């Protein structure tokens, strides 16, 4: 129809005007054609890249972008051939072969402790005023005390009151603590958490007037809460991997939203004046190990930012002397607990290296996992590197995942300086290992993780050269 309209009518054929506009139209159509081609091209490209992305789901920004792009091109070509030949079936197999990180840390929830509301009865704050007109305006009699208190909390008046009088009664403190950890009312839960955090944080501010707390929680109570959320304590046999399709019932398990308040509260506690009364050193060690372990639950990946903050605040709890001892035991605990698959890589990557302590910790954890991987058969780093050098990447049975994991682990361990007398040897061995990996694995090796090992090692090698060590 449109074509017909645009065709010149008889008497128009002489008209120069129309003719030019027609040719413009034609040209435009041609351009659109090119655009379509381009679009097709891009769409295809995107599709291929997505396929790539699936394969490398765990991969983060560990190699240079340019490098990546060049490789992408080659791999895209390759994967297209593979995909064409093997069709969907082979794709399914490939998917299964690549494990991703993720553990279920939370099982079925337990019933929370029942809060005894009569405990609010002798609370001074809720005593009626002497002014009967105010009482009638507030209608306090007709309303239940806890309802009114909820209103005060959610509207911020409770904080106002506490900051004005500098005192928190034990029944109020306990009540707010309970609401924060167990209330299913999102709004109430968040307000209670804000309340507690602002009270705890108040003390760390300079020249703030001190708030007297009649009650503060103990670590055991926080641990109980985790238990009630369904946390599977230390029973590593019970963790099931996320990747093995248990998605249907994902609403049932997974921690309740209160976990977020739990994490925030803990973050505030570590910095509070009361910190030493709430935790012993051993308890902080345990808590820190637990917090870091939370990184591997996929349910919590959306709040990894808070977990990370909590970890940093826990690190600041220790004095320097305490830290040196505690760091070892935390690393040991983590290394024993964590499966030696992608999860240990995830944990390492999540211990963000923003200060000396977190760097120290990351490095110790890497070392411990490494030693655990080799079953303590080897005693020194040199032995481990020699053992790795003996592996032939040409071998069909070569386990590239293990190679990759070891690369990550050793790289992290090298963050700290090895003992001086061993340093030259270790660096020499490490360099040799990196060269082996980067040059002997062909770029067309499509076994899972082969390309990752190759890229990672050439990236690390490049960095080595930059450092004049």
């Amino acid at each position: 129809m449109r074509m017909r309209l645009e065709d010149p009518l008889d008497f128009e054929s002489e008209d120069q005007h129309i003719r030019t506009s027609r040719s413009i139209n034609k040209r435009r159509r041609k351009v659109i054609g090119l655009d379509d081609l381009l679009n097709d091209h891009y769409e295809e490209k995107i599709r291929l890249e997505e396929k790539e992305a699936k394969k490398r789901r765990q991969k983060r920004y560990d190699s240079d972008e340019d490098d990546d792009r060049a490789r992408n091109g080659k791999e895209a070509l390759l994967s297209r051939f593979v995909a064409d030949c093997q069709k969907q079936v082979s794709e399914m197999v490939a998917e299964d072969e690549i494990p991703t990180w993720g553990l279920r840390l939370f099982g079925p929830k337990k019933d929370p402790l029942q809060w005894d509301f009569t405990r609010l009865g002798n609370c001074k704050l809720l005593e009626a005023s002497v002014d009967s007109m105010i009482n009638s305006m507030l209608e306090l009699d007709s309303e239940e005390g806890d309802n009114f208190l909820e209103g005060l909390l959610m509207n911020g008046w409770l904080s106002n009151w506490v900051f004005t009088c500098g005192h928190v009664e034990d029944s109020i403190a306990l009540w707010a603590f309970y609401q924060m950890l167990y209330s299913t009312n999102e709004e109430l839960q968040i307000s209670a958490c804000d309340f507690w955090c602002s009270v705890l944080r108040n003390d760390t501010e300079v020249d703030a007037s001190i708030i007297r707390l009649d009650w503060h929680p103990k670590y055991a109570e926080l641990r109980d809460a985790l238990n009630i959320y369904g946390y599977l304590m230390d029973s590593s046999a019970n963790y099931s991997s996320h990747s093995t399709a248990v998605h249907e019932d994902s609403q049932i398990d997974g921690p309740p939203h209160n976990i977020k308040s739990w994490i925030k509260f803990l973050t505030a506690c570590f910095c509070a004046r009361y910190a030493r009364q709430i935790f012993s050193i051993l308890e902080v060690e345990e808590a820190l190990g637990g917090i870091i372990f939370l990184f591997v639950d996929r349910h919590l990946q959306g709040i990894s930012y808070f977990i990370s903050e909590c970890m940093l605040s826990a690190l600041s709890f220790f004095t320097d002397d305490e830290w040196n001892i505690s760091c070892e035991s935390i690393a040991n605990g983590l290394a024993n607990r964590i499966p030696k698959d992608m999860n240990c890589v995830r944990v390492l990557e999540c211990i963000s290296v923003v200060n000396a302590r977190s760097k120290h910790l990351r490095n110790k954890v890497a070392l411990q996992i490494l030693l655990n991987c080799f079953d303590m058969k080897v005693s020194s780093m040199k032995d481990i590197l020699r053992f790795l050098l003996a592996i032939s990447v040409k071998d069909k049975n070569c386990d590239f995942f293990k190679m990759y994991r070891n690369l990550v682990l050793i790289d992290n361990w090298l963050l700290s300086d090895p003992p001086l007398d061993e340093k030259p040897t270790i660096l020499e061995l490490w360099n040799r290992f990196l060269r082996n990996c980067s040059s002997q694995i062909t770029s067309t090796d499509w076994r899972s993780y082969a390309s990752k090992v190759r890229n990672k090692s050439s990236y690390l090698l490049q960095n080595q050269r930059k450092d004049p060590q």
Partner: protein
Amino acid sequence: MASDTPTMPTWKMCEAIFEIFRECSTLELTMASYQLLVELNKRYPRVYVASSCKVVVVEEAWSPFVCGVEGGGLIDSSSFLLLAQDVAQALIKMESQSLGMRCLRDMLLFQYLVKVLEGDLLPRYAVYKETSDWFMVKESLINALWVSPRVPRLTYKNLVKSCLSIISSLSHHHSESSYQHQQIADNLSSKTVHDCGAALSIAVMTQLEDTSFAVQKFLSMIMEVDVMKKEADSQGYVSRGEGSGSSLLETILDVLTYDKDLLSPFLQVFSIPRWKLDIVLQYFSKYCKRSSVRTRRSNEVDDGTFEGVLKCFSNATDTKAMVRKMSTEVAQLLLSHAFQAYLFLHRDNKNTAKSDDNGGEKSLLHICKSMISAFKNIRTNEHVDMTQFEKGALFLASKILSRNE
């Protein structure tokens, strides 16, 4: 960042991370790249204060904003506005589809951008406090992006509207069902999005609060710049070209007076006491008899302060006049919010001024007394049910009084 002698990441790297953040489709990658961006912003500030009270701008450093940086950057005023509108739309609809990955990413992006703006403004602000040098503030991103008259008024006003609507959509008083948060939580958990429905739902829930706070911070930064500009203007430092359009405070008041439904939810969520008190007092000043108040600097004068406002409610006739002009509901609401903001400010002042003066304590008691009598006066005039919030205000005023008796 891991090495001992960290080098600043290259332009290309930053841009790549930013691209990954904007394009990626998994929750894991989104959170990781967001965290990295925030960390980089903290670690390698583009602007910092050198020892000699001078602001240093690292010109070659990467910034997500177009303005001021040659060739780089991706965000300008209009894309920022679009972002704010997208977030506002998603939050208003409150449907599960709208609160997916995209919304999460938008909210995170908004927060990140506000962090960048803050990192850019704070050092300049610190230097301004010392030297009153308007030029440094004038060069700030936030001024260039939003306050400067080069920004079309309509864009500006739309942005303010979007910000206000983001804030108020997060209030639990806004919708008919009283617990908006609850509603979102239910929506999110009732659907199964790929492999991380539960994870996404926790993430979105968390980001709602933080986004609201980022918006408040953004607004208060602009108001801060407004104040500085006004000061500089009074000293003749502001050139005519920069002009002085209506300040954000006035714009907010306009929007709030025009759209009365926004008033309560906005005040409910907006929690920065200093600006909250300002907004409420300015609102009152429109109705108070002696409405000659403009700036915060005229605080010595009785009106324009909270005491001044309370005087308007000190006897039955005045109260009646006020209530006729602004309705009982609004009067009760505003008084309560002003009271809360006042209490927070009072505490901060107490902390900084160290206890030796009793004046602060006395004026607090005086305010509490006036609050109670104001409420009583309103009540005798017309009986309107009080909301939980207003009851809280009255309750607290009487509690503080009885504690000191």
